[in-house]
């Protein structure tokens, strides 16, 4: 009976769950990074960005997205103020702070980012990997070393 009611109300099929779970697990597979590594990478990114602008650490979103067979990291980092936090020796060239924390860094895909640190000053952070190429090398080089988890 419950089954019948569930069907009547059009509960989504389990294939949707399968799709979502696969999407997530493959992202981690492709990154070959443990979840805690991703967290620590997020923290480091934010630390670097915070040297230039003040960001809202609680509302940072970092997502991974498949673009063809490459993986892109998209970060959405709300900026509270463009004031640089005072740092030793640097002259504060502060502009007047906006009345409300409106500015949001919207990150666009850009290929071949060598160093996320260097790129943080601009408003774009993308980590993209040509995984095919890497795995090719892996198979050519024989048994692959275990990923550092």
């Amino acid at each position: 009976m419950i089954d019948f009611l569930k069907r009547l109300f059009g509960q989504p099929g389990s294939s949707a769950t399968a799709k979502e779970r696969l999407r997530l697990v493959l992202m981690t597979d492709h990154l070959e990074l443990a979840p805690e590594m991703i967290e620590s990478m997020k923290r480091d990114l934010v630390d670097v960005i915070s040297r230039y602008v003040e960001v809202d650490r609680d509302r940072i979103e970092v997502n991974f997205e498949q673009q063809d067979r490459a993986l892109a990291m998209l970060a959405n980092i709300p900026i509270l103020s463009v004031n640089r936090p005072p740092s030793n020796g640097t002259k504060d060239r502060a502009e007047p702070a906006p009345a409300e924390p409106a500015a949001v860094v919207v990150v666009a895909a850009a290929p071949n980012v060598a160093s996320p640190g260097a790129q943080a000053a601009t408003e774009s952070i993308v980590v993209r990997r040509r995984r095919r190429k890497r795995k090719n090398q892996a198979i050519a080089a024989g048994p692959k070393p275990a990923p550092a988890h």
Partner: protein
Amino acid sequence: MLDPVILSAQPEQNTKSMGESAPERAKPLGRAIVVTSGKGGVGKTTTTANLGTALAQRGASVALVDADVGLRNLDIVLGLESRVKHHLLDVLEDRATLDEALVADKHSEKLFLLAAAQSREKDEVDTEKMKALILALRERFDYVLIDCPAGIELGFKNAVAGAEEAIVVCTPEVSAVRDVDRVVGLLGNRFRPQLVINRLRPLLVKKGKMLSVDDVNAILRLPLLGVIADEPEIIVTTNKGEPLALRKDAPTGAAYHAIAARVAGEDVPAPMPVTKESFFDKLGALFGGKKA
């Protein structure tokens, strides 16, 4: 280029004994295609047997190589288990010639099987000798289909060693899709992997209870050769050792023939299973409303 072991494994009367079924010596090298998946039990062996049968029925000469050393199965799926006298390792280790080891198929005159060793292990295969063997087969056959063992260890590496192309078999399950994704990453672009989706149940897909062809390929993004439905017929024909591809009139047999045509480069549409709905299915769908 050829390994001396393999050269000596080819007898002088080579052209005589194989002359009727194998093509002329001057023919271009055949295509070596590895059938792989990562995960076990998704239908690699069934796909190899049926695709080989369909290609041979089209008139091509085909050698099937069972690279699953230690878990020999292709012979029994083809119904040839009683005819196997020598196996892959006998040839690689010079105890038998290629002609002695190749088993002629019962049904298709241009189809031959090189069985795996049953009582040996995958890591006993010498990768270089395997490469040379596949090359020797390519000189004689239009197609060399290699049935790859499950896993991504040495057995996989040996199976892909001599191949130039890959067909990956995937079922619409999370585990199979993940493993195919991994295997495709390992293969790289050199093998131009193409996808066969196996054991699809159209009705479950319609009900939203199984990943659809589009769901699977939104993730894998591979050229699709075709989709094979999960049909009781396949179990029955495997029980009998008569590949379903022998019956072109059966929907699944026809699907294997369409896949073979696509492999051969013909511009035919990728076969898709059709939904066969019973009255109760339709009734259920009616009440299921949005879900159907």
